[in-house]
């Protein structure tokens, strides 16, 4: 079987969605780790950002990241459209089977993946516009992202928006992480139930980390801290 043929099949597509999703999750971990340097003060934060932006390899990484992101979006959107056409006539009455049997993993999170996904994509666009392509301040000869962040999160509206966005990402990962494992064929009688829990713990952890940043920055800008 050709790889190309395999990647177009329903299972191949889901494997790609899983792989790209996990890659984006790994990116999120790195992104959070970097962002947490904000807590260490302007110098450390800006130095870290500069080291990142200043490296010519960053363009390769950005193209890679963008491709992964676009592939994830393309495969999921195409999947949703194909899945819609797999049931042309809707049911008049619909209830979750979970109601009769708790073995189902269906949740509000799992049923809204496309919604949370689309929201996340829109958020990423705004996020990039706000930060990556936002006002360029300089400090000590390098870009002062610390100041930009302080400025942006001094506005309560932005803070709320980011908190909501992080909540949405949490929701997406709540089902997404364990779902990716299932798509990749990870299964074990004892470990699968734990993996389900781990997926939720990780999604809370990562979102929790990201929650911290706008709140911390807001409080800092208001002189509370």
């Amino acid at each position, binding site marked *: 079987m050709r790889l190309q043929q395999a990647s177009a099949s*329903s299972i191949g597509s889901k494997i790609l969605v899983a792989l790209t999703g996990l890659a984006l999750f790994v990116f999120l971990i790195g992104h959070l780790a970097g962002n947490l340097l904000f807590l260490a003060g302007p110098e450390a934060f800006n130095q870290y950002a500069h080291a990142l932006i200043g490296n010519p390899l960053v363009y390769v990484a950005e193209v890679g990241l963008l491709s992964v992101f676009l592939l994830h979006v393309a495969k999921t959107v195409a999947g949703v459209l194909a899945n819609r056409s797999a049931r042309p006539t809707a049911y008049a009455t619909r209830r979750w089977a979970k109601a009769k049997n708790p073995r189902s*993993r269906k949740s509000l999170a799992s049923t809204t993946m496309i919604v949370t996904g689309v929201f996340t994509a829109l958020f990423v666009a705004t996020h990039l516009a706000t930060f990556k392509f936002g006002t360029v301040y300089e400090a000590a000869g390098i870009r002062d992202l610390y100041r930009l962040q302080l400025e942006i999160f001094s506005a309560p509206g932005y803070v709320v928006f980011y908190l909501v966005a992080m909540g949405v990402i949490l929701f997406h990962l709540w089902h997404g992480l364990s779902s990716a494992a299932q798509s990749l064929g990870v*299964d074990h009688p004892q470990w699968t139930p734990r993996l389900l829990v781990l997926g939720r713990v990780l999604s809370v952890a990562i979102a929790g980390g990201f929650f911290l940043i706008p709140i911390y920055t807001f409080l800092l800008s208001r002189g509370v801290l």
Partner: protein
Amino acid sequence: MAMTVTLKVWRQAGPAAPGRLETYTATNVHPDMSFLEMLDVVNEDLIRAGQDPIAFDSDCREGICGSCGLVINGIPHGPDAGATTCQVHMRRFRNGDTITIEPFRARAFPVLKDLVVDRGAFDRIIAAGGYVSMNVGGAPDANAVPIPKDVADRAMDNAQCIGCGACVAVCKNAAAHLFTSAKIAHLGLLPQGEAERGRRVVQMVEQMDAEGFGSCSNEGECEAVCPKQISIASIARMNRDYLKAALGK
């Protein structure tokens, strides 16, 4: 203590005809009746009134042939876990209830009439590779290859699939992954099925896609309605087998 229930039943004259929900009243419903026996009684009344009875598939009426399959109040095979439609009894409902009855819905399962759908797609998926290629006469002694009990048991867990299609009916994507993976797991677990493991998964998945089923969102609603409670662990296994085959291993 006879009950009366109101039924909203999907009526559709033929594959191309439009359909709609029609309302019927079922009186003299006994709690010990099975759901299908209740429909039998409704049909008797319809025939006496000169109307067309409600068409539905059913045969063994003991939960093993896989013929019956109705979506009852929004859930395939109704309210009981691990049961088929024919195993649901009217004692699960209350006097005065309104019950909506619809056919299994999927592009790959076109409605033939009322509540009867065509599940031929499942046969074609099996024909694509759901077997061990061996001819009569060529078998070694049955005990020539020992199979650990737990492996045989897991194969049996999957082999129990009755091919009813409830997994497709409940799936928001109308996916047939649980059905397909159950056969792949059944045969793939056994030494007899090992030789064709890669070829089997590739061909069956290709056929499954060609039939117009959706893809898997890993929600496990299929497992929850499966009369035999086949686990979506089998889907993970199928994905793994598929990945191996795609990578040429």
